[in-house]
């Protein structure tokens, strides 16, 4: 669900509203870290959308975990 963006960071290709896919992706991610409650936007707790390492962009987010591949 990720692709390299122009800065070489991992950009999520599902956009901002693919809740089920973002939950599945986080389920398989060993680096998932839950963000503080006020920044959570998905009802599925374990979701890339709720992860401390996601950095929102205009149309999606990039994964900022240094161990992401």
């Amino acid at each position, binding site marked *: 669900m990720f692709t390299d963006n122009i800065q070489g960071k991992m950009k999520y290709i599902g956009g901002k509203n693919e*809740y089920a896919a973002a939950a599945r992706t986080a389920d398989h991610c060993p680096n998932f870290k839950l*963000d*503080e*409650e*006020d*920044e*959570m*936007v*998905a*009802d599925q707790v374990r979701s890339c959308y709720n992860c*401390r*390492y*996601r*950095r*929102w*962009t*205009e149309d999606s987010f990039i994964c*900022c975990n240094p161990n992401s591949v």
Partner: protein
Amino acid sequence: MEILIAIDDTDNLDSKGTGELAEEIAVTIRKRGWGNTQGVTRHQLFIHKDIPYTSHNSSMCFRAEIKPEFFEEIKQFSQEYLRKESADGSDPGLCIVTIHELKNHEKLMEFGSNAKKQIITKKEAYDLAKELGIHLSEHGGTGQGIIGALAGAGLRLRGSDGRFKGGINLPKDKTSVQVKELKNYDNLNEVMSIDGQIINDEEYVLINGKIKTVLLNHRAVLFVQPAETEDEGARWENCSKQYLRRF
């Protein structure tokens, strides 16, 4: 006297969030007898590749009714607190608005609205703060956080933006609550359906998870939608995080 305190850009990926720092400043104001505070609100600002931010570009603000003689102490404490507690690599900014001295409310509110849709420079923020008589200070890094701090104050002043930090946890065995009981909680003034209907005090709401409210027309509003299945006499249920995201 009434003031607004807003902060922004105090965190990094591993630190406490900006909301937590705002809450701690508010708690100190109450504990030291400097005044009373209202809930902290989170204001989403513009997401753009040319704007530096840690992960979400949101600003935090609260309103306080303080004893005027403590204004300087509150300002000094807040500045020192940001210097001490802000994370490495962050660019913290602090804004304090004394509402009765504010020279032009509309200009500050407009600044807040603009910060949700366009890039704004530090110079523009400092120029406006000077013109309106607002305290604006930076406490490390590039100090870029002053832009979000000023914007957060403007959005809070407008009274229709952002979600309240934290929320209300009901006892585990309680799932259905009457509106009039809900309105006894802090940061919950009104229950409203997603099409704008005020829900009357006698109705019941099914509560899933934590109760989260948003700032709308200067009120803390709990949004509800028709319940999927009517249970315990409740025709309504609280909206999901996904719905509240728009605030």
